[in-house]
């Protein structure tokens, strides 16, 4: 503990264990210990004991509540009405939560209260030790030097160099082993260019699969569309992968609302009915929201906004490219069909997107 010097000497404090370090005063050392109520008053200590025991009892009650929740509430499958089942589940979940919370908090708070009021609270000073002793360091260094010498690796560079070469090559098989992570048969980026859409493929509603008669679509309406041949794909994952490339958003606008069309796209719409890829060109979320008054399409993930009246150009947000348009027309029966596949890869941009298509479908 600190000793107080006398005022006249000019020394403010003479510290027992402090160090000067050029600060205004010397380190005064630990403040004197102040006993807690429970240290000096047995009654207070008794009271703490009772409080801790009460908390432990609370914990026991919590465990009981948990068991009540687990066994007394019927499981969901025992209800005919699923709303009642959901209510029971909610009650059970709450009882389990509150019960186990009480059980745990009772123990936790009890033990902490015990430690704070009854266990010794004297602060103790312990010296740090240097992380390493100089003698140890020297000894260790000698050992390392000896070991390296004994291997003779410095004297025999042939051994060292061939070992390095071997060690560099040896992990490669482990990398190559992962090649078959891609389990598909047609490895390569070309598959990203093509979807199920092709000339004559009918547009059908998602998810019912009913074909769409052009005459049935009112101006201002929009619908989610998939290609009719999607149902022919077998395998859940394969179907989802194809669907992920060929989902389409279809809307009918007043033909007067269209602004200038890109040359060559004049016959891509049918009486104001226009279709585009539903996959955002940003990172691929479904562009699911259509606002009929502004004819804007909005992606709810990152708010890229596209204008259907102007070739789906980007009017806001992070997308860097318009949505690809699907050329459509009607067949003899008046049902909407595609004129071709998309004329560019849909969805998020990938490195090889701009490359010339070897099959010659898309000019670069």
């Amino acid at each position: 503990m600190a000793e107080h010097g006398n005022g006249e000497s000019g020394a403010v404090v003479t510290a027992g264990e402090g160090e000067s370090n050029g600060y205004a005063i010397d380190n005064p050392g630990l403040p004197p210990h102040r006993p807690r109520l429970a240290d000096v008053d047995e009654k207070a200590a008794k009271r703490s004991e009772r409080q801790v025991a009460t908390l432990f009892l609370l914990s026991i009650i919590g465990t009981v509540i948990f068991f009540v929740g687990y066994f007394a509430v019927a499981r969901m499958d025992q209800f005919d009405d699923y709303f009642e089942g959901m209510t029971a589940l909610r009650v059970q979940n709450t009882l389990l939560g509150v019960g186990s919370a009480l059980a745990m908090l009772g123990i936790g708070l009890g033990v902490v209260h015990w430690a704070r009021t009854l266990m010794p609270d004297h602060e103790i000073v312990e010296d740090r030790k240097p992380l390493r002793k100089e003698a140890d360091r020297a000894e260790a260094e000698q050992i390392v030097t000896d070991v390296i010498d004994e291997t003779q690796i410095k004297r025999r560079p042939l051994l060292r160099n061939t070992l390095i070469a071997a060690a560099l090559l040896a992990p490669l098989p482990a990398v190559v082993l992962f090649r078959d992570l891609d389990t598909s048969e047609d490895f390569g980026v070309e598959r990203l260019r093509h979807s199920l859409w092709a000339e004559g493929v009918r547009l059908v509603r998602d998810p019912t699969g009913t074909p769409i008669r052009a005459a049935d679509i009112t101006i201002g309406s929009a619908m989610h569309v998939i290609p009719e041949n999607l149902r022919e794909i077998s395998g859940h994952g394969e179907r989802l992968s194809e669907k992920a490339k060929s989902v389409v958003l279809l809307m009918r606008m007043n033909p007067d609302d269209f602004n200038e069309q890109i040359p060559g796209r004049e016959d891509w719409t049918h009486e104001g009915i226009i279709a585009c890829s539903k996959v955002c060109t940003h990172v691929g979320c479904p562009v699911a929201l259509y606002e009929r008054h502004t004819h804007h399409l909005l992606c709810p993930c990152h708010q890229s906004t596209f204008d259907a009246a102007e070739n789906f150009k980007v009017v806001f947000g992070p997308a860097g490219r318009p949505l690809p348009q699907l050329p459509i027309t009607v067949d003899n029966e008046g049902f909407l069909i595609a004129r071709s596949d998309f004329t560019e890869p849909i969805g998020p941009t990938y490195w090889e997107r701009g490359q010339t298509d070897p099959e010659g479908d898309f000019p670069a």
Partner: protein
Amino acid sequence: MSASQEKYAEAQYLEAEQYQAKTRSGKIANYVDQRVGGTGMVREFGKKIFPDHWTFMFGEVALYSFIIVVVSGAFLTFWFDPSMSTTRYSGSYAPLQGLEMSMAYATALELSFDVRGGLFMRQLHHWGALLFVLAMAVHMLRVFFTGAFRKPRELNWVVGASLLLLGMGAGFTGYSLPDEVLSGNGLRIIDGMIKALPVVGTYISFFLFGGEFPGNEVIPRLYSLHIFIIPAMILILIAVHLFMVVVHKHTQYPGPGRTERNVVGYPIGPVYAAKAGGFFFIVLGILCLISGTFQINALWNYGPYDPSPVQAGAQPDWYIGPFEGVLRLMPGYLGPIPLEFNIPTPWGGNSVAFPVLAPMIPVAVLFLGLFIWPWLEAWITGDKKEHHLLDRPRNAPTRTAVGAAVMTNYFIMWGMGSNDLIATHFQLSLNDITYWSRVLFFVGPVIAYILTKRICLALQRKDREVALHGHEAGVIEVSPDGGFHERHKLPSEYELWTLVSYEAPEPSEPRTNAKGKVSRTEKFRTWLNKIWFEDRVEPVSREEYLEALEHSGDHEDGAPKSLEAASSGGELGSGRH
């Protein structure tokens, strides 16, 4: 070998055989000790000192929530089947009955509705994971702002930063497992970001998904990452982290009796162990309470994954928020100019999705900065000393300001991750929020830096003021000649020590290299060093302090207070100035 290693004498050998413990626990301990030698550990750790401060418990919270997440997660694995093979749902939740879905989603629903306590454990697992990452982040902020990452703890800081990254990885891989619409769209975003990576992106996406998105493979792969690879790495790094804490001994806040060469605190046994052990139950209890009363990830509302539907207002888990936000922040076009472009090549051209790549830059800088910060700061300040006493954040104004700037940047990105909800809840224009955030993304950190630095310096001046003239007592005195002055209460020597014992170095001069020249890097370092240290508040010097004491003792009642009384505090010293 050193002399401390004693020879195992015959006598000792026999002695060990003869020892008979008196109590039952002593007998058990003796049995174990004779076989694995635990006495040494008890001697080492039983009374090991840990400094106590409420900010030291965030790391504990992280550790405890990790344990809780591991245990609750192990429970979930008994029912969850991470398979993408399809089934027709026939469980208790009527609205989804008859729907085709993956086994992963079906078993996640089974866990929620048909396993008693399954929903509770799912929610405990999810809330625990959120708390795990949160506690790590707050712990890291504490370590940063108090300078606990400085020598010799730099490597442990890196281990901690790795743990934070792994924690987020564990969270995201788990988030994606139930295979419903919400997490499916999250995976789709990840797929889009991976595809944007130049050269390798497309193939990484194919390898991750086993072909085209979403395919049949990704859920089991994420599962193996989620329940085995990432947790194993976290476990190993936690062991390394704690081992290093023991090696270094814990840091402590500056204060009376504390020095760079000691540790002041409570012994592990019994106080610290009881508090820490009790605290585990408190963390678990709070998580149980939240899991029992607050619903999280109601995955039955979303339906099985399908590439077509999406929810408006979907939010990722909190720690993914900034990365989601910065994606939303980035414009795709600058006016009419698209930021996405093609590099012309003989084979047609390669596409660069700059609007997706650009947001990765601040994220990469953030994490790179996190990892190299201890060395960066030491290089700028030229500080090569060991530090076991923490900095009060105000006493390292530039570091605190840099931290505040980075946090501001982070929170702007984070807020942008919810820009749609901010727009709908506060009736604001989504576009305006986005435009303003783009400005704030750059301007906000600058304002935060300047403000924080000024606040730190002001607090330091306040400390000086208190050290020299005492606290304002709020008592106005009238002197016999009619003058008014406020009484000041001088701080105790213990408080005073905390106020005056800090370093505020001046900017350093450039150092010359072996050739006697100042290198270009050294010039740059000196420039940074000047920025770092030029605004400084000098700690109270001994002379200043003595002079101030003299002054306060020079009281008009003619009875100078003794220096002793003034410095040991407690009483009201009346200082006039």
